[in-house]
C-alpha cells in the first residue's frame, strides 16, 4: 500500500479520497496516481496539475515519474506559505 498525504488547500479538496492505495510494485508513479485520482476527483486532479505543486516520497522531493513501492509515503505539496 502507498500512503497519500495532501497539504494546504489540497487537503480540503482531497476530503473524500482514500489515503491508502494499493499499487503494482514499481509500476505506480505520482503521475499515475494523479491520473487515477482524476477519475473521481477532477477538481483535486486539476489543482495537482498546477506547475507549482511538488511531490515528495518518504519526505524527499521527487519527480512525477518516480517509481513507487509498497510502504511509500507520497505527499502532494502546494506552494509553501510559512514564515
Amino acid at each position: 500500500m502507498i500512503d497519500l498525504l495532501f497539504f494546504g488547500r489540497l487537503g480540503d479538496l482531497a476530503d473524500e479520497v482514500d489515503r491508502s492505495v494499493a499499487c503494482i510494485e514499481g509500476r505506480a508513479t505520482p503521475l499515475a496516481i494523479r491520473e487515477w485520482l482524476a477519475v473521481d476527483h477532477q477538481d483535486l486532479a486539476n489543482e495537482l496539475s498546477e506547475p507549482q505543486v511538488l511531490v515528495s516520497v518518504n519526505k524527499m522531493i521527487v519527480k512525477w515519474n518516480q517509481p513507487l513501492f509498497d510502504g511509500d509515503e507520497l505527499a502532494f505539496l502546494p506552494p509553501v506559505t510559512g514564515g
Partner: protein
Amino acid sequence: MTDLVCIQTDDFDLAGEYRRLRDISSRVGAIVTFCGLVRDFESSSSEIDPDAPINNLTLQHYPGMTEALLANIVEQAKIRWPLYGVTVIHRIGTLAPTDQIVFVGVATEHRKQAFDAAQFLMDYLKTQATFWKKVTAEGKEQWLDAKGSDNDAAAEWGESRDD
C-alpha cells in the same frame, strides 16, 4: 549544541533566545534576531478583502519533512557564513493577530555576516520549509497563496535546490 531548530505550538521568549545565542561564546560580536508576527489583515489573497480583520491564522506543516528542511537550510547558512549559533523557531497551530509566529537568530563575530545570514535563513524558510497558512476572516477560511516576491528574494541567493 549551538544550533536550535524548533517547531512548536507554544510561544517563545525573545529575551531568552537572545541570551542563549549570547552565551554561546565570548567570540560572538554580533547577534541579529528576527521575529515575525501575525498581522490583522491579509493583502496577498485575492479572495479576502484587505480591509477585513483577520480572526485567526492556522499553520499546518509536514512533520518530519519540515524539521529536515530547516536543518538543511541552517547547514547551508553555515557553509556560507561563519556562524557560532543559529536558532530557528516556527510555531504551528492556531494563532491570533499580534502573536509571534517565527523567530530566526544568528550569532557571529561581525554584523554583516549576522544580517546576511538572518536574511538568508528567512528567505529560504519562506520558500522551502513545508508550512502552509490558512486565515479566517469574515467567517471564511482561506488558504494563502505563495508570494512571487518571496521566491524572487530566495532566488537572489543563487541556486538552492539539488534537483
